[in-house]
């Protein structure tokens, strides 16, 4: 049995210029925004029938994983995207507010479906007419329920918004 031989690769001489990238320049906000827009960790606050469409858009045929927004975190403390999927009632509003307040900055909110966006066809004693009455919303996705394409469009618009935003990480302004 022949002894195995390990090929010896000569190390590049230190300090040699081989034409590869050694550095590139970018803006800090662009770099941070690029990283953040592809690592959205959603917290699904799922209350109603839109949940079916949320499952459809999360599963393989439409696959929100392509946008880096696939892994739901079932603790708001680990999430940075709050997806409010379905009708929110006045009785439930304090729960939604508490979930939102538990999320760490930076955080974004997506109103999934017309009920979360505006209350939809509910105008009564029970339903909250849009979650933006109690928490700020970044992206509204209309539809009852929205098509998966609309959800994907919403995610991409949110990504654009994140990429264009300022991302102060060291100080209040930088």
């Amino acid at each position: 049995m022949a002894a195995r031989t390990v090929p010896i690769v000569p190390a590049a001489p230190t300090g040699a210029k081989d034409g590869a990238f050694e550095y590139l320049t970018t803006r800090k906000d662009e770099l941070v925004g690029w990283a953040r827009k592809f690592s959205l960790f959603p917290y699904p606050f799922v209350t109603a029938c839109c949940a079916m469409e949320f499952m459809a858009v999360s599963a393989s045929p439409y696959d929100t994983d392509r946008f880096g927004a696939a892994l739901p975190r079932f603790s708001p403390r680990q999430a940075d995207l709050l997806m409010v999927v379905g009708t929110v009632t006045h009785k439930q509003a304090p729960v939604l507010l508490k979930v939102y307040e538990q999320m760490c900055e930076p955080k974004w909110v997506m109103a999934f479906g017309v009920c979360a966006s505006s209350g939809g066809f509910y105008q009564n004693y029970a339903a909250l007419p849009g979650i933006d009455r109690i928490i700020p919303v970044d992206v509204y996705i209309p539809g009852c329920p929205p098509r998966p394409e609309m959800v994907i469009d919403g995610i991409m618009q949110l990504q654009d918004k994140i990429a264009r935003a300022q991302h102060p990480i060291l100080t209040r302004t930088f």
Partner: protein
Amino acid sequence: MATDLLESLQQQIVPAAGAATLSHGCLVFSLAPEELMPTVRRLKEEFGYDLFLDVTAVDWPADALRFEVVHHFASSRQPLRVRLKTRVAAADPSVDSLAKLYGSAAFMERECHDMYGIAFRGNHDLRPILLYEGFTGHPLRKDYPKGREQPLVPYRN
């Protein structure tokens, strides 16, 4: 068999309330509030109506006896459901609680109390079950304004 039962129910249960009507396979009696408890007890003990289905109410704002409390019963032995309608006035919208006969009635009476403000004598736990503490009014009454909101979280704007 169903016709026999129908006749015996019609003859034996509160003949004073007038003839019962048959509506969509459901025998309907109209009762006075004081007749409710004895009627339900007889339905349960003599006729085998062992399943309490629901209690709700109807608001007739123009009528003197404004609220119609509606009970539904089914039986595991009889092929006929029974509906009892009890009219009460808005000044004292109260009927007897059926919680002693049917345990499940306690929860449904709480819901009916939430939505219509019907007081159930003998049910001592009429806390809100679908609504929340601090909610004033009864939203399924006709005079509750459609657009009236009672938010628990103050609005941002």
